[in-house]
């Protein structure tokens, strides 16, 4: 082997090892940085769920950047001149190999150069290239390895995204499924129609809440709480409407006493206010045309005007004016009074229809909340790939009978009825078999339960309000949820038992306030009317189902 070959071969070997070591160092450095970024993002995902889209995009970018960095670092092979300089530096040869390699490339015929090359070849032959460039894993490689272990641990550890919530108060972004979009539209339409007929505060608040929920400006739980307030306003409207209906029935009976207003009275009794208004208008036209009113019309009008219930003041005034006109034989005044009465009836019809539409909208709202909650529950239980945004941080699995905030409890009512079953031991809880709000107050008094949430509690299965009767949904409260509920109920019972021993003063005050509620005042209403005024949150068709459920999960003593 010539001196030239010795030098070139040694330089090639050194160049290869230099390149390998350099690549190891570069890759280790780059990998440590990339893994650190990945660990950071994974850790952030534990605190703040980033969503599958963001995570997917990140991993794609991460891989692309890593690949690009690898390609960039591969670079050209180490040149022999570069290797010569490095060998000189590492072996402290004082540029002997650099000079020799340069002289080799010059092909100069000079004895001094030959001597230099010979000496350099001898020096290179004595070098241990492997010893000069040992395979050393740089510190960055250990950092990369540690980061990799951490990354694997973070990805395979049973930590759900968002398990640690840094911003518990932040409202989640709800990505509503398609069916909920339809519900949103339906509720909006109902509220628009109700507002067109008769604007009210309850409609305004309802619309605002709906908009917040639709724009994900409010969490589902918070929306349920706000819905409680809206439903209270709607319930008050229902009370008023019930009074109006009752009053109109009495007015109808009074008007039937006269031949002229018999049809109008019949219409009021049947609840057909439009027909009654038309009859009165026809009567006014006939009187205007010169027909003599019946002799008993003034008595009928006067008796009817005696029904001055809330909401009927205007109608009573008009009827009173009509009776007065008949007494004074002022037929023009009679005609105006009858027209005014018809207008009052039309206005009352609008109020009643508006209230009906609100009740329907409230029922749809319950259905909407159910749909959103069920979507969450299904996602968390079956780990079906739903949009992560639908899952709120810190949420527990909320089945229709879960004990989480706003969850339905046995015997819970809406707090607005004649709740009489107070202070009942939860272990003895049973649902009332009759309507009328029996046992409804328990929810308001159960320790740790918020009576304001009662409507929302029932929302899991039972739409509220009259005029709306969706199909029974029995699927949610079976199998796994039932078993989980058993455990939760046990815990809950323990808590309740301990808290019942030292009944909070606030709870006593609340019960006292409930007893003094104006709605518990003696009434001469018929049972049907009472039922209308005190709508049970648990319709009859669900009561047996719920009763069976709690019997099924009852713990054996």
């Amino acid at each position, binding site marked *: 082997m010539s001196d030239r070959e010795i030098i070139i071969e040694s330089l090639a070997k050194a160049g290869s090892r230099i390149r390998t070591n350099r690549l190891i160092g570069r890759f280790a450095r780059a990998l440590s940085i990339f893994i650190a970024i990945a660990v950071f993002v994974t850790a952030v995902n534990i605190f703040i769920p980033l969503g599958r889209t963001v995570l997917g995009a990140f991993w794609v970018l991460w891989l692309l950047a890593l690949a690009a960095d690898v390609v960039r670092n591969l670079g050209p092979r180490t040149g022999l*001149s570069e290797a010569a*300089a490095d060998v000189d530096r590492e072996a402290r040869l*004082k*540029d*002997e190999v*650099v*000079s*020799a390699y*340069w*002289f080799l490339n010059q092909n*100069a015929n*000079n*004895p*001094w*150069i*030959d*001597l*230099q090359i*010979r*000496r*350099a070849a001898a020096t290179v032959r004595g070098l241990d290239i492997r010893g000069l460039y040992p395979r050393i894993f740089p510190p960055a490689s250990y950092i990369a390895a540690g980061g990799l272990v951490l990354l694997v641990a973070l990805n395979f550890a049973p930590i759900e995204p968002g398990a640690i919530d840094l911003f518990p108060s932040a409202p989640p972004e709800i990505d509503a499924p398609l069916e909920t979009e339809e519900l949103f539209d339906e509720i909006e339409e109902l509220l628009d129609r109700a507002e067109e007929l008769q604007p009210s505060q309850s409609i305004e608040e309802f619309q605002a809440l709906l908009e917040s929920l639709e724009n994900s400006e409010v969490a589902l739980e918070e929306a349920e709480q706000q819905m409680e307030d809206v439903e209270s306003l709607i319930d008050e409207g229902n009370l008023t409407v019930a009074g109006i209906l009752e009053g109109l029935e009495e007015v109808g009976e009074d008007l039937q006493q006269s031949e002229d207003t018999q049809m109008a009275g019949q219409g009021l009794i049947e609840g057909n206010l439009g027909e009654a208004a038309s009859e009165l208008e026809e009567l006014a036209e006939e009187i205007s045309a010169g027909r003599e009113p019946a002799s008993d019309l003034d008595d009928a009008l006067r008796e009817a005007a005696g029904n001055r219930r809330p909401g009927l003041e205007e109608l009573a005034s008009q009827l009173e004016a009509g009776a007065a006109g008949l007494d004074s034989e002022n037929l023009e005044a009679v005609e105006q009074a009858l027209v005014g009465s018809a207008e009052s009836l039309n206005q009352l019809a609008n109020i009643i229809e508006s209230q009906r539409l609100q009740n329907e909208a409230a029922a749809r709202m319950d259905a909407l909340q159910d749909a959103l909650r069920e979507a969450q529950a299904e996602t968390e239980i079956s780990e079906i790939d739903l949009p992560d945004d639908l899952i709120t941080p810190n949420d527990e699995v909320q089945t229709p009978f879960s004990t989480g905030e706003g969850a339905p409890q046995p015997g819970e009512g809406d707090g607005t009825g004649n709740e009489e079953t107070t202070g009942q031991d939860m272990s003895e809880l049973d649902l009332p078999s009759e309507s009328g709000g029996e046992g409804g107050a328990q929810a308001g008094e159960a320790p740790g339960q918020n009576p304001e949430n009662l409507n929302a509690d029932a929302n899991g299965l039972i739409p509220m309000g009259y005029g709306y009767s969706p199909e029974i949904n029995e699927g949610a409260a079976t199998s796994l949820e039932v078993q989980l509920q058993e455990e939760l109920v046990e815990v809950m019972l323990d808590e309740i038992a301990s808290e019942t021993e030292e009944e909070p003063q606030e709870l006593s005050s609340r019960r006292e306030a409930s007893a003094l509620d104006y709605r518990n005042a003696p009434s001469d209403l018929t049972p049907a009317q009472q039922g209308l005024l005190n709508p049970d949150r648990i319709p009859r068709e669900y009561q047996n189902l719920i009763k069976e459920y709690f019997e099924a999960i009852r713990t054996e003593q």
Partner: protein
Amino acid sequence: MIVELDQQIELFQRRFNLVKTEVSKVIVGYDEIIDGILMGLLARGHVLLEGVPGLGKTKLVQTLSGALQLRFSRIQFTPDLMPADITGTNVIQQNDAGEKLLQFQPGPLFGNIILADEINRATPKTQSALLEAMQEKTVTVGKESYQLELPFFVLATQNPLEMEGTYPLPEAQLDRFFMKLRVDYPSIQSMHIILNRTTRTGEPMPERVLAGPQILEMRETVLAVPIARPVQEYAVRLVLATHPDTPEAHAMTNQYVRYGASPRGAQALVLGGKIRALLHNRVHVSAEDIRAITLSVLRHRVLLNFEGEAEQIETDAILEAILRDTPEP
């Protein structure tokens, strides 16, 4: 052939060491100075020694001449020294026929080793009289040019410029010095040895161990040593870094330097590097050889600007910065 070259290198080293040993018999503690002077001699250059009076500069040169079988001349530069006093002049002489002729009378410059003692005490006019001799190795008087005998080696000493009665050397003359060596105070140990040698009887005297032809032979050996382009480029980059307002200029150069080193500086670096390589038994010049002599070779070739003078910047500081920032091959 290669064996002969090995022997030639060995002979070079032996001769160099012989002279050094002889000089070291008299001169104590100035190994680097002696090496520098001998490098200048072998590189066909001249050496400027700078130091305060009394440090043995003159003694060193006298000792060196004593170790070499060469003609030695000493010129004591004074303010009233005239160029003709050192170059020689034509004098009127009468021949046997009674005719009067102008005949050239050589001055002290006609020697092999010239000691220009306290060169900066003479006026620039007289100092410049050395220029032709140092560069061309000739002396021109009137219409006649006289070739100086080789080897021709000027060893000049100067006192620091801040001393009274001194004149700064012209830039052109400074550039002709291969090296400028600074003679510092000897160490305690060296002082003891100096005292022991000079305050007793039997003061050591150097033997003449090297003649002119041998020196010329050594010079040829130096020139034969090859230098690779990467190392030569390093020397070039060092020199270019002293040139202000050029792409290669160092930041300190741009700030403090008026004129940088000339190509003579690069020549000196390479020649000095070759000598140093031979002395270290190498037949190639390394960047380390260049770096080792950079200060001595370039310090007098870098001229400071007003700002550099005002801030009393040392040219050595600039060169050290350049050495620090210039990458080696």
